[in-house]
């Protein structure tokens, strides 16, 4: 069905470059001054890093769980990272400290490892249990964040608002750290594309294909923890990117992760560049919440996708229960 993934990938690169140019050129002030241009550049960089990282995480988690609805929040990674941030704040670490990503990565990692430990039975980790444990641990994490909000009312408001997501971070060290981490993780996921392809066929099939299922599963969870932790530390929790973008990329380049991972990363970057453009220009001089923009763009699209999927399943179910002429078997 997908004939030329290379060409589709090239198209995505062009789209992302156009989005990048728009992000630099478009704004309420027309031709920007040097200070404004520097500001737009910093936001665009962060949009690319965060967008590509979230989309890559979503693709990996969807393959790993065999669930098209999987994203960082489903396996508890996002709220684990948020708990890490809250613990860091509780220890007196500033929201701009380079130590912050360390705490959020550890938080995401702890959440994922806890989920794996809870979900593992008889040396295996069934997908349903993994998702159920993920949602439960995620809810527990959010409860910890809320409790922190209750007990540290003065400062906690600021931390909560930080967690709600923004591309305003501009500290070069943090951006460079996030960029490095995201680049390494995307490269690692692309290099592991064979394993991800195998996971899509189910754990048993992956095992029969010679994949060390458990080791890869832990590896991919660690990769997701690193990505989510670093992204939450620089930009808070921005939703929907990891859920939506992999589906768009899949429609364009097909299911092979060799193409799908880079395509998702590029599409995620383009999506967040455009979302940030809307966030800072739509209601100028007000700045809208980037998370609200991603949800507004992503939500309807996702519902369309879901509807199409349900119809396809109905058609398949009907063809299973009828003969070639549409009569019941």
């Amino acid at each position: 069905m997908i004939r030329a993934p290379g060409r589709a990938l090239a198209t995505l690169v062009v789209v992302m470059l156009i989005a990048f140019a728009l992000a630099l050129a478009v704004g309420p002030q027309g031709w920007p001054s040097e200070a404004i241009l520097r500001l737009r550049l910093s936001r665009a960089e962060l949009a690319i890093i965060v967008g590509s990282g979230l989309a890559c995480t979503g693709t990996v988690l969807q393959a790993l769980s065999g669930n098209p609805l999987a994203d960082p929040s489903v396996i508890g990674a996002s709220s684990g990272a948020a708990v890490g941030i809250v613990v860091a704040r509780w220890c007196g670490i500033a929201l701009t400290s380079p130590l912050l990503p360390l705490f959020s990565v550890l938080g995401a990692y702890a959440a994922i490892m806890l989920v794996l430990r809870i979900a593992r039975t008889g040396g295996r980790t069934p997908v349903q249990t993994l998702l159920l444990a993920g949602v439960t641990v995620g809810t527990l994490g959010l409860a910890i964040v809320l409790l922190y909000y209750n007990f540290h009312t003065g400062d906690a408001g600021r931390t909560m608002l930080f967690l709600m997501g923004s591309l305003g971070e501009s500290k070069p060290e943090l951006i460079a750290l996030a960029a490095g981490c995201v680049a390494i993780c995307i490269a690692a996921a692309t290099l592991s594309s064979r394993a991800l392809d195998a996971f899509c066929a189910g754990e048993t099939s992956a095992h029969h294909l010679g994949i060390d299922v458990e080791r890869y599963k832990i590896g991919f969870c660690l990769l997701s923890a690193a990505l989510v932790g670093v992204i939450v530390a620089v930009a808070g929790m921005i939703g929907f990117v990891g859920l939506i973008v992999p589906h768009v990329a899949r429609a364009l380049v097909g299911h092979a992760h060799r193409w799908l991972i880079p395509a998702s990363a590029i599409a995620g970057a383009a999506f967040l560049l455009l979302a940030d453009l809307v966030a800072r220009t739509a209601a100028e001089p007000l700045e809208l919440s980037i998370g609200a923009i991603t949800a507004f763009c992503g939500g309807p699209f996702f519902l369309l996708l879901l509807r199409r999927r349900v119809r396809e399943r109905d058609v398949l179910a009907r063809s299973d229960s009828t003969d070639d002429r549409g009569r019941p078997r």
Partner: protein
Amino acid sequence: MIASLRRAWFRRVGGGGVGIAALALLAGCDHRPTSPPPGRHVAPRRIVSLAPSCTETLVALGVAPLLVGISDYCPELPAGCAATRVGGLENLNVEALLELDPDLVLTVQAADDRGLAAFRRLGVAVRGSNPQSLAAMLAEVEALAVLVGVAERGRELAASLHARLDAIARDPAARIPTIYVEVDEPGCFTIGHSSFVHEAVAAAGGLNVFGDVAQDYFQASQEALLARAPDVVLLLHPIGRPLAERPEIAGLAAFRNGRVIADFDRDSLLRSSPRLVDGIEALHRRLATP
């Protein structure tokens, strides 16, 4: 969503009120007016203030000993007064409040706040006010004075505050500087013309750079701040991140010219109480200094 959450949070913390959502849940919804129940003509003798602005007004009226309970955000009371702290924002200790057996609870919650109705259902008289202009603040001073039985003192206080504001107005600066007032970060959380802080800045001789925005508190875009290039930056919050690391501040001429005021007594401008006039006078002096 961020802006509205921030606004709600700021109103409660900076603006001085206290969240009483738990009570609302406890007792459901009601929309009666916010004055105490009719038929009570006796001046209250056991007051709990859940708002720093109400506490400051009572202190200024010289009736601080009437306070038996205050919120965690209220200032320390004068020597000799003892009031129990009953919590704050999201952690109001309703039982501790009820144990104080108050005959009046003061808060800055809006008239339709569900928390007020919840208090009434628990048998507590509540007065909610939200003065969002200088005139409303002066009227509130007089109204509270009448309520606690010191009407004459209230009139005198309001008149003296009025006179001080008039004195500032008679001393205009040669050039009105544009001013960016930041009430919170991360992000550029600032004031529009619906906030009393906007009027206070104008009374001090400044021009709010976002005064055209029909909001009270909102998040401005970094780019809009750079483009509007204020003469003065006034930061009314603890500094979380070094200003040099914030491109929207570091890129301003005000930053390069050393016209960033970060050490201002923020509560004096963020609470709609008699102390606001102190804040206006202090800001007037700072703006006059090049």
